[in-house]
């Protein structure tokens, strides 16, 4: 039984007056990979945005035992939560290497930052080839890798990934997910993964949550969810 790194209880989220999450309970184990599944508009992205302070929330969020609900984004990020947003958040006018340096902006250990940039290039050799290029000229897959690389530069303890497979060719997705698995094992980064591609996500994750219109439907070990035919047919569509 490993410790809980992130825990949300009764999490609600609001866009203005509209409520988008209704009392969600969620936990990510230290060192684990958890996935959050659901159809379009189920509230997956909102859940991630709520955890990193980008929308107004009610309820309780604890990271490493500390309450973080209601804190500003910049503070939550500095605790070691890296959020790789939907749409990748690329700084298109900056070079690939500048993008990575932006990811390390909260750190002040200059030699270590250089080492970490090298480490990112180790995981993503194609980024090294394009290090001086404007990031906006990269392909979708390369930009997604850059987004993960930028998150790595924070030296996070938890990575929130919002649909990293979106719009990518199957081969690229496989490559990316292999790297995520390696990151989880080698750098001891816990992961909370939001995905449309349920079968892919369930293969990677050890725990899964399934939500619908902002409420929990079912949770459990990925294996059990994958083997539950009713759930698979009615919610996961494969």
């Amino acid at each position, binding site marked *: 039984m490993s410790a809980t790194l992130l825990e949300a209880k009764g999490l609600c989220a609001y866009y203005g007056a509209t409520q988008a999450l209704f009392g969600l309970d969620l936990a990510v184990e230290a060192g684990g990979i958890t996935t959050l599944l659901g159809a379009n508009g189920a509230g997956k992205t909102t859940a991630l945005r709520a955890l*990193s302070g*980008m929308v107004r929330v009610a309820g309780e969020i604890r990271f490493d035992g500390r309450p973080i609900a209601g804190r500003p*984004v*910049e503070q939550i*990020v*500095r605790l070691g939560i*890296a*959020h790789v*947003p939907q749409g990748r*958040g*690329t*700084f*298109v*006018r*900056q070079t690939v290497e*500048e993008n990575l*340096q*932006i*990811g390390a*902006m*909260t750190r002040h250990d200059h030699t270590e930052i250089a080492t970490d940039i090298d480490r990112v290039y180790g995981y993503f050799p194609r980024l090294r080839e394009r290090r001086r290029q*404007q990031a*906006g*000229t*990269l*392909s*979708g897959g390369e*930009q997604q890798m850059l987004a993960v690389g*930028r998150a790595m530069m*924070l030296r996070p303890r938890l990575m929130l990934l919002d649909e990293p497979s979106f*719009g990518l060719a199957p081969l690229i997705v496989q490559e990316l997910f292999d790297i995520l698995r390696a990151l989880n094992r080698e750098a001891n980064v816990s992961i909370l993964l939001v995905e449309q591609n349920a079968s892919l996500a369930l293969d990677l994750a050890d725990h899964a949550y399934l939500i619908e219109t902002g409420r929990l439907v079912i949770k459990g070990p990925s294996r059990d969810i994958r083997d539950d035919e009713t759930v698979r047919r009615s919610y996961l569509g494969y």
Partner: protein
Amino acid sequence: MNWELLLHQVLAGLATGGIYACIALAVVMIYQAIDHLNFAQGEMAMFSTFIAWQLMNWGCPYWVAFVLTIAISFVGGLAIERIVFKPIHDAPILSHIVVFIALFSILNSSAGWIWDYTIKDFPTPFGTRSLIGNGLISAHDGGMIGVTLVLLALLYLFFRHTRIGLAMRAAAANPESARLAGIRVGWMVALGWGMAAAIGAVAGMLIAPVVFLEPNMMIGILLYGFAAAVVGGLTSPGGAVIGGFAVGVIENVAGTFIPYFGRELKLTIALVLIVAVLLVKPSGLFGRSVVSRV
């Protein structure tokens, strides 16, 4: 064609162009930080120049007053952002414009109220002797062009080679993503205002000896500064400086050589330039249009 007259007009144009370049640099700085043109930029520069004048009146030597004014303006710009613009940063663009106009008239009338509307002499540290072409470019014009170029070089180094410069660029380019990287975006915007106010102060202090100090000194010049910034590209500090010199030269040469244009229509040239550039190349001559794949 009278070549000597042309050369004279080009040189005189470079001298006035130095003024436009200076103010255009401040315009571009703030545009980079907040994505809007600040109509009150000229009045902020004018107010800073009055502060410098006041300090010198109290007995400060020129360079002490110069440095102090830059520092005060920096803090002032920062304060304007924190107090006035931070609360409305999510508001639609029209709200910003209304606040710009309010800031414009507040600064303009308080300057008039504090220092009255009589025209004041403002000293130059460079002297007024002729540098080139029998008075066409004076020592002060040369000094002004030099300071503008130094300022440009410093800005380049700051934005390209410091981490805080990179953080500011990131915050301007993609605020949400910058926040997710832990950058305090609000403070980066405030810093942009501070820097723009400081650059404006330098511009005001360099322009004042040429146009004389009074509350309305910047109104015409700001229009030329906008023209220069648009010609050069609002995203490019280097382009703004080149745009400034270009506007100065075009204004002088056209005023001299196009019949019936004369001095009265010189201001029209600035407006024609803005429209022409926006029609032909909206990102300006040196502005970057972003290339992006999805």
